[in-house]
């Protein structure tokens, strides 16, 4: 056990080293938000002046903003003064002490998803969360990245080690004035990830939040910034297929991507936060602003998302295609079961010449779920020869759910070519019977049909993720038919 004890100490030590100072244990700020709280956050994190100023400007701007109400969502009012905006890592006195104390239902889900045993404890929030196996993995991983010159670290570490990069890129894609939730995030964000891939470097591996040492402490207001310098290439995976214990109801993250000339960023998300129970009680509100800018010529940004969790999802990963010949892509599977509500889609803003974008959205509604696709294709006068292809399909299961599609197009250049295809279908009794009459169980048949529907999106996911995503869909749809 002594080795394990050492490992444990090592992790605890690392965690503190990555952004926290030892005296914070005592000072969790009381609920409420004002400039003093923001100053406190900034001071605790040892931030430079420019960052504090930026936070304060965001806060002052936010005070004059109202919660957006244009989405096809019913959202109970949120009391922003009831949230504590800074807290030390939880002492976790209330956390389960071992897997024996964890809800058996949750464990059954891990079993179905094939989550490795040593991972289950961490995900379930068991107090002793030493992830022994991943320590060595994470270390080798850091070595390889360092050799390639890739920076991949918690945001608060980047504040200390790479302030010049932050000052140059932070808020340049999602300005602090952008929207209610992004502005709030700009004022109060506490952590997240930072990635910088130097010129001409092809990142030697997929970057995954899974390997970030403090991933267990995913914040309520995360901020992620990824910069791919000229000619570089990076693939980033976010999230986890297994449901995680999480006490925060509101999540308002911001993700900014910057691709310089000839650079390529691939950003994949699998989001499976707690969706609430079968009666629609509880569940996470996920209000995320994700945007990438193809700043340089011939650059490419590709978003792939599989959204199965959260009670409410408000999310539009977008691409600003500034550089000539740049390419933006959005591939999405969004599922709304029980009382889940999803309003998601993308914006493709064509500015440069010969810019191209592809949108493939697959919405699945079951139970009393409401699924909305909302997309904007905007072609500016400067975007000579721009092209967009949009495909937007909805699959309905049962007759108490809903699918809605709001495609917006603003075309201001006559040379543009924009195509839009949309379908809505129901999982037919005929399809189910066909499969069953071949010996396949009803549940397997539903999975097969749904996975077939989502196939073009899953193809865009990294291999391992794609398999997990398929399992995740079937677990999320359990009991949706019959």
């Amino acid at each position, binding site marked *: 056990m002594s080795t394990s004890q050492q490992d444990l100490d090592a992790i605890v030590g690392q965690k503190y080293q990555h952004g926290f100072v030892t005296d914070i244990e005592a000072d969790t700020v009381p609920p409420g938000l004002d400039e003093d709280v923001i100053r406190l956050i900034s001071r605790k994190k040892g931030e430079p002046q420019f960052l504090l100023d930026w936070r304060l400007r965001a806060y002052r701007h936010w005070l004059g903003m109202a919660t957006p109400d244009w989405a096809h969502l019913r959202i109970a009012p949120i009391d922003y003064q009831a949230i504590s905006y800074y807290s030390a890592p939880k002492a976790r006195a209330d956390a389960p002490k071992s897997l024996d104390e964890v809800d058996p239902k949750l464990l059954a889900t891990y079993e179905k998803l094939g989550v490795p045993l040593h991972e289950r404890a961490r995900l379930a929030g068991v107090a002793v969360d030493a992830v022994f196996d991943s320590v060595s993995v994470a270390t080798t991983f850091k070595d390889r990245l360092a050799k390639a010159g890739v920076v991949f670290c918690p945001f608060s570490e980047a504040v200390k080690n790479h302030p010049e990069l932050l000052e140059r890129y932070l808020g340049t894609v999602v300005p602090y004035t952008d929207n209610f939730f992004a502005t709030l995030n700009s004022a109060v964000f506490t952590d997240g990830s930072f990635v910088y891939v130097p010129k001409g470097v092809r990142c030697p591996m997929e970057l995954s939040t899974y390997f970030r040492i403090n991933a267990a402490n995913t914040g309520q207001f995360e901020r992620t910034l990824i910069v791919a310098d000229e000619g570089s290439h990076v693939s980033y995976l976010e999230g986890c297929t297994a449901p995680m214990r999480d006490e925060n109801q509101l999540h308002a993250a911001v993700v900014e991507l910057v691709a310089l000339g000839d650079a390529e960023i691939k950003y994949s998300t699998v989001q499976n936060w707690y969706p609430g129970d079968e009666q629609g009680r509880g569940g996470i509100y996920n209000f995320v602003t994700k945007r990438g800018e193809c700043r340089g010529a011939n650059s490419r940004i590709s978003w792939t998302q599989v959204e199965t969790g959260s009670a409410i999802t408000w999310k539009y990963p977008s691409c600003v295609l500034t550089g000539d010949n740049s390419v933006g892509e959005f591939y999405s599977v969004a599922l709304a079961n029980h009382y889940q509500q999803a309003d998601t889609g993308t914006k493709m803003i064509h500015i440069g010449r010969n810019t191209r974008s592809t949108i493939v959205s697959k919405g699945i509604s079951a139970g009393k779920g409401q699924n909305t696709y909302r997309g904007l294709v905007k072609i500016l006068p400067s975007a000579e020869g721009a092209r967009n292809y949009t495909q937007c399909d909805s699959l309905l299961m049962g007759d108490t759910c809903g699918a809605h599609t709001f495609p917006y197009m603003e075309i201001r250049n006559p040379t543009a070519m924009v195509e839009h295809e949309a379908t809505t279908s129901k999982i*037919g*009794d*005929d*399809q189910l*019977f*066909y*499969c*069953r*009459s*071949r*010996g*396949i*169980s*009803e549940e*397997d048949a539903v999975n*097969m*049909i749904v*996975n*077939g*529907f*989502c*196939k*073009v999106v899953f193809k865009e996911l990294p291999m391992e993720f794609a398999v997990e995503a398929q399992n995740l869909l079937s677990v999320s749809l359990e009991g949706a038919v019959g």
Partner: protein
Amino acid sequence: MLSIRDLHARIGARNILKGVDLEVRPGEVHAIMGPNGSGKSTLASVLAGRAGYEVTHGTVEYLGLDLLAMEPEERARAGVFLAFQYPVEIPGVNNAYLLKAALNAIRRQRGEPEVDAFDFLSLIRDKMKLMQMDESFLSRGVNEGFSGGEKKRNEILQMAVLEPKLALLDETDSGLDIDALRVVANGVNSLRAPDRAIVLVTHYQRLLDYIEPDVVHVLSDGRILRSGDKSLALELEKRGYDWVRQEAAVA
């Protein structure tokens, strides 16, 4: 193998089957013929377990099992196969994938080991040759964008792979040109076996030129009015169905 006794079934308030009796033994090929709306397809659907049909009376015994009490997938795993009149498209679901899943579900039931992708591929390639199907079929979606003939060939391919004990073919000949009909018939004939029974539901005697039945039944207004050997089919071709109905009415 299959004993149907006084089977009554309806859709909603409409009675379709009004007392069907049928006895099928292993190795036999039966043809059920009859005019439109006589209940042929309903009979096939009820036997396969399609929802929407209510059995109001009668029993169906299959290999000693109460067939009507079984779920559709249980029937399939017990060796019942229905070749659909209108095979369904399932976009994005790979043909080979569906068929492999089906085969393994049936093999599990039989207590046999599942086939892996490699064995499955060599198995299905053989059967595809028989059905004169192109290799590209393997990677296409289930019936997705298939022509009428391709869909029907696909049904018989599935039958060849799943090796049922009781095969119900629901108007498999409809919509086929003569060449496709030959291929399909050839496939079905190759599956004739002493332990396998085949029930063909058909409108025309044309199919029976290629698949020779042991017994021919005339189904009309929800009842089997007459049974005989293959000469009955030829007589029907010549004289139509009316005389059968008239004779039945007199009797």
